[in-house]
């Protein structure tokens, strides 16, 4: 009975949130589609890892956080930056390498930063940023705050030492960190089960006496609810949580990689697209009468316009001044 009441309360709280989640997921989807176009046109260089398919993870989890919490991620972080409220203009300009980018054009796609939003990268070495999240958690605990840090990484990072060293220490020191593993099933072109002895990432939490939860990453509400539970653990007792969020990337590992072929079939990708997180939420809202097709079209048009504006802004922004080459190597 108590559980039923709690669920009803959560439902009500969601109602106001769901249209916002839909908009954020749509924004990420359209933004990434535009980024792919701009990449093909040579406006974006280097590596560019798209988030299409995984939108529910960033949106579901970040909507459960406060503005004074920290967010840190891997190199597939456009979606989290946008969901955190970094403007589409600033993210697109960074992808274009422009001075108006959120990292002043010095970071690029893999190194998005916005210190004001406590969005602290954008890190390019698989698993290398996981200890940084524990360090942010350590700083929170040291200062006696009730904030937390959420750390995003792919399932492939679970095979690296930094993951295990960090989970152990986060548990020993009781750090307020949510380790959010986005299991999209492939580390570049290698299926997880081919290289991992334990394929349920949540199982690793047992080794470190840590709370853990397996989450459906195509359901934004499920991600949100699981994150809320982890947030509560972190705020109350400074306890870390390992979330394994099962998701799927529709695109190749990066823009220079194939969508499918040697490592997965076209049929598999198409099958996964049927679980699309945006369609699922839109359908739910329609069924509940909270949204009709006209409103959805209007929302899509609005998001399209925002992304078009971001491309225009990035295009017209200046390159960094040549003098910027040598600034920010050292702080004063």
């Amino acid at each position, binding site marked *: 009975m108590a559980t039923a009441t709690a669920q009803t309360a959560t439902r009500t709280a969601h109602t106001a949130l769901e249209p916002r989640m839909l908009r954020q997921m749509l924004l990420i989807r359209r933004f990434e589609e535009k980024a792919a176009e701009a990449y093909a046109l040579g406006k974006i260089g280097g590596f560019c890892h798209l988030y299409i398919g995984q939108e529910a993870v960033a949106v579901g989890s970040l909507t459960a956080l406060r503005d004074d919490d*920290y967010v*840190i991620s891997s190199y597939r972080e456009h979606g989290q930056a946008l969901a955190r409220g970094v403007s589409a203009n600033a993210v697109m300009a960074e992808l274009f390498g422009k001075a108006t*980018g*959120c*990292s*002043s*054009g*010095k*970071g690029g796609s893999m*190194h998005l*930063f*916005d*210190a004001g939003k406590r969005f*602290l*990268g*954008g*890190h*390019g*070495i698989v698993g*290398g*940023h*996981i*200890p*940084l*999240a*524990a*360090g*942010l*958690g*350590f*700083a*929170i605990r*040291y*200062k006696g705050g009730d904030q937390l*840090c959420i750390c995003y990484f792919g399932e492939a990072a679970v095979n690296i*030492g*930094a993951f295990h*060293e*960090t989970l*152990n*220490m986060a548990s*020993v*020191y009781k750090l307020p960190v949510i380790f959010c593993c986005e299991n999209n099933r492939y580390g570049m072109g290698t299926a997880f089960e081919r290289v991992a002895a334990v394929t349920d990432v949540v199982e690793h939490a047992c080794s470190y006496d840590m709370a853990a939860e397996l989450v459906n990453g195509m359901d934004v509400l499920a991600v949100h609810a699981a994150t809320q539970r982890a947030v509560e653990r972190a705020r109350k007792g400074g306890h870390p949580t390992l979330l394994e969020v099962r998701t799927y990337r529709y695109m190749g590992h990066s823009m220079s990689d194939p969508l499918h072929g040697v490592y997965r079939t076209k049929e598999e990708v198409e099958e996964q697209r049927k679980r699309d997180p945006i369609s699922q939420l839109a359908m739910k809202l329609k069924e509940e009468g909270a949204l009709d097709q006209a409103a959805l079209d209007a929302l899509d048009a609005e998001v399209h316009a925002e992304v078009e504006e971001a491309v225009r802004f990035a295009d017209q922004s200046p390159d960094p001044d040549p003098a910027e080459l040598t*600034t*920010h*190597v*050292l*702080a*004063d």
Partner: protein
Amino acid sequence: MATLTYRDALNQALREEMQRDPNVFLMGEEVGVYQGAYKVSRGLLEEFGPMRIVDTPIAELGFAGIGVGAAMGGLRPVIEFMTWNFAVLALDQIVNSAAKILYESGGQVPIPIVFRGPNGAALQLGAQHSQAWESWLSHIPGLKVVAPATPADAKGLLKSAIRDNNPVIVLEGEMLYNNKGEVPEGEHIVPIGQADVKRPGRDVTLICHSKTVAVALKAADQLAEREGVSAEVLDLRSLRPLDEPAILGSVARTNRAVVVEEGWPHAGLGAQVVDVIQREAFDQLDAPVLRVTQADVPMPYNKQLERLAKASPERVVAAVRRVLYLD
């Protein structure tokens, strides 16, 4: 002035900076309950408690990264490596995180952190425990690197390192911890980037740092006594940035230089010093600049072989004789 060991000078610097700034904390293996593998942190757990003197598991990559993250979160971590040989496991965090986050964030996120511990060979510890990492660490933009040779410099440079808003590498020496010297009390700061003439001279400049300062001083004594040669001993103290004006100023006076360094010859730190001299002081040189380095081999265990492998006063004297064309 008090006479202190190098170890206690570092301890004093840590204690004073932790008293001065509540955001400074020390983290590493055995720093707390055990009082430090080399007792640099003796008494600090009792004074500052376990939140600020943090014992870690043996997980260099993990705790170095926790340090960097804590710096991102506004603290001033001092990360102790039991030796720099073990810090190789943490290079990803030093090189990819600490040194780059300020730049790749477009200046938004400074990383004020100190990584410190003993560097280079001690006695008969074998190949894996006897390595000098200064050329590796000095190669990286975004890092500062210091290598104090005396107790006074150890205290003054560690205090500067802790107050610096950048990642600073402090290379100590296992063989230096027991050395005694006069150390100014209280606010004694040695700015990063300033070399120091440890012995003035006229005929040749011996450029050295850390443990090789003692080697150079001994060689200078021998040169004065046996050869009538007046050698200037210039202690770099900071390896990045290098004090180029001090190097060039000394060479302008002596017209000859020998670099005495720990570490292997190939792509060693001394090669960078030689580059500065040939580029900026070519016309002032009366002889090629020579380097005295560790032998180009993994460090052997055997005592005699180890002695042969290390830079020695005898090899410095021989190099000086060559640049003075005495042979």
